[in-house]
């Protein structure tokens, strides 16, 4: 296990992150328009003063080395846009919000998605199956930027049950609509994967044997079918988890939620280099971490691929 962790961190994670940082660092500087360009042109001498303050007057390779040195100390640099804050401040404040929202959406997505998938698989080719798959197809193709305003219109403006936006530290009324929008896509995908793999497992010889022995269906499901059927789901959950906590840009923007999705999109639009870099590193590190978690979980569920 220790060897596994060592290999994962030093031979895979760190080199991957370094490549990611390097590519992002140079790539974002290629985007036209700088962080300090604005509609009212800033006179060159003022621009020079700003560039000096943010080390942008140095050669790019020097900026790069300076950035890596700061990073080694855990300093992601100042935000070029939000001058009252460092990237650390902003991410530190925003990450818990996105995590909280993401985890709730993730749990809802798993519960509904897996149950719906199993139900559809058991009632394969009946109206139940078609209904579940139909709804999940709608879930996949319906974009969040359509669903969010529609839900807000119905539940906030017409029915007045829920607020149309805001966060209020994550109070229940404020999270219902964002969670609903955010988990929609994942429910659909998880339901489809679960159904497919469950159908496959149910038709495999060992299940037939179990049924031939006269075991009740509920027992077969719990004892024999569940684990293998969930393997593909679990491999999807790793990247999905990262996606759900970092990819809620539309949801956060529409509902005014102060999470990292908003920071990301504003960072890119404002050419806030340190912000975009910092968040890219965060997303990269999370992706690597959760993929590793999935690999470990795999081993627990399926002894055949247990890590040696």
């Amino acid at each position: 296990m220790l060897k596994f962790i060592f290999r994962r961190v030093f031979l895979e994670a760190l080199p991957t992150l370094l490549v990611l940082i390097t590519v992002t660092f140079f790539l974002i500087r290629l985007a036209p328009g700088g962080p300090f360009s604005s509609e009212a042109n800033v006179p060159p001498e003022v621009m020079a003063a700003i560039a000096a303050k943010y080390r942008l007057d140095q050669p790019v390779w020097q900026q790069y080395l300076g950035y890596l040195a700061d990073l080694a100390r855990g300093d992601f640099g100042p935000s070029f846009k939000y001058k009252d804050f460092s990237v650390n401040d902003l991410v530190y404040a925003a990450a818990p919000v996105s995590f909280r929202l993401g985890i709730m959406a993730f749990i809802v997505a798993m519960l509904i998605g897996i149950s719906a998938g199993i139900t559809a698989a058991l009632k394969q080719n009946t109206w139940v199956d078609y209904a579940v798959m139909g709804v999940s197809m709608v879930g996949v193709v319906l974009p969040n930027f359509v669903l969010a305003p529609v839900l807000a219109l119905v539940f906030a403006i017409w029915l007045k049950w829920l607020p149309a936006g805001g966060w209020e530290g994550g109070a229940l009324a404020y999270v219902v609509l964002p969670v609903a929008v955010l988990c929609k896509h994942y429910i659909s995908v998880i339901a489809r994967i679960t159904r497919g793999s469950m159908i496959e497992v149910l038709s495999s010889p060992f299940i037939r044997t179990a049924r031939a022995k006269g075991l009740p269906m509920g027992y077969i499901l719990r004892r024999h079918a569940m684990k293998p059927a969930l393997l593909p789901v679990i491999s999807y959950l790793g990247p999905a988890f990262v996606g759900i906590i970092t990819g809620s840009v539309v949801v956060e923007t529409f509902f005014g939620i102060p999470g990292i999705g908003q920071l990301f999109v504003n960072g890119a639009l404002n050419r806030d280099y340190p912000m975009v870099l910092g968040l890219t590193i965060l997303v990269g590190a999370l992706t690597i971490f959760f993929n590793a978690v999935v690999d470990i979980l795999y081993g627990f569920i399926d002894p055949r691929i247990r890590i040696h």
Partner: protein
Amino acid sequence: MRTALFAAVLLAQIASNSLSAAEVPPGTKLHPIQEIVRGNGTEPATLDPNKAEGRPESNMAVELFEGLVTLNPDGQVIPGVAEKWESREDGRVWVFTLRRNAKWSDGSPVTAHDFEYSFKRMVDPKTASQYAWYLGKASNVKNGRAIVEGKVPPSELGIKALGEHTLEVTLEKPVSYLIATLAHGSLMPVPRKAIEKYGDKWTEPGKLVSNGPYKLAERVVNERIVLVRNPHYWANAKTVIDKVTFLPINNQSAEYQRYRANGIDMTADGGVPPEQLKQIRREIPNELATWPQLGTYCYVFNFRKKPFDDVRVRKALSLAIQREVIAEKLVGTGETAAYSFTPDSAQGYSPIVHDWQRWTQAQREAEARRLLAEAGYNKNRPLRFELLYNTNEGHKKIALAVAWMWRRIGPVEVVLVNQEWKTFLDSRNRGQFEVSRYAWIADYNEPSTMLDLFHSKHGNNDGKYNNPKYDAIMDRAKSTLDAGERTKLYQDAERILAQDFPTANIYHYSNRRLIKPWVKGYGRNPEGRVLTRDLYILAH
């Protein structure tokens, strides 16, 4: 003698204006809870007034702080911390007397030293303020430019406290409209003690000390900024609203939904989503508030690219645009057709009517056709160019309409090119365009903030228009103290623009917001500023 007279006129003007406070008519039934939620467009880049960049920052600066002067609800300059002022040496030196009861939110007095500190900090290259140029270029404060260029230390700025309550401002040359420029959001006093103690972190809740009607209570980046009354504000007794929450919602549809769900009482300036306009007109027509804004939407011609160095081409394209159709039908939220660059509502300006403005559209188009033919364009040699705009549905609609209007005057083939905002700015600043969307919103309420753009030396003269005669007029206007004479010079400047066509002006912006019927006290400030200090909530 002239100085004395000038000062007397100013004082008389001041006396006739209202005080900075909410004016609640007698008999008004107020709501027991005086709290308001307002949209603020986007998250302010900073709460440090000296570093303010645009509207969202400036909105916060003027709520939290108060400068030497401030604006009343209708946008007229009224005394702020300065109670009165007078000019000496023919407008070269200005002396401000500060009110003795002005206090910071920690209870300490606001002094002339605070203003001296703030103004010097703002021009200091170390502060790296995007508006560092403003005091030198707009207000013409002595050494302002030289300090920004790094030639002179910030201590040499022409501003000096002559005691606790007397501030002297020395200019490079007399500037008639100095007072108007001083209402700018970046020119607020800043708390020296807090800044020296906390550095860049001084703007956090609990650390930020302010001298305006409100103080900072809470800030969650990308969610909200909450301000509460500053009990030490000198006119606090006349303030009505106790608490104001600003929401940084840059998606207008999202802001609209929250407004409709009663989560917002007043949307940000411009906070009227065009795609919902029909619904707004049908369901809540009384909540749509529009009034003229000091800003102009136009297309700028690049003089460095042929054939836009040819006035016939520029004039033809400008004549072809049916301004009323765009302003009233296509945009339709109080915008007005722009024939001149300076909006009619600018103080110290008196609108003129150009010859071609009196013509019918058919006459204009006939002339445009003639000019294009004269410039050598015909079926075999059509006029081909790219029209650049920043990606936005509204800009696209206008570009499509204008392209259609251009095709009506002959062989004009326009390719529409849209770019994401920062990319667009980059193209425009580097002169990589032929014709481009251009817009300018006034920094202060005076025609020079608009007309200076066409000065050959102005940094935002993106089309590189250059007419020495025009430069001379603008230089003269700056130091002309007589208001009537100055207005004439601005009219002359507009006449030159109406001959040279450096831009095809399209419409003058409007201030537009959605405001709940229970919010009162706002006026028609052409700079768009609506101060919470002036507002009150009716019982509802």
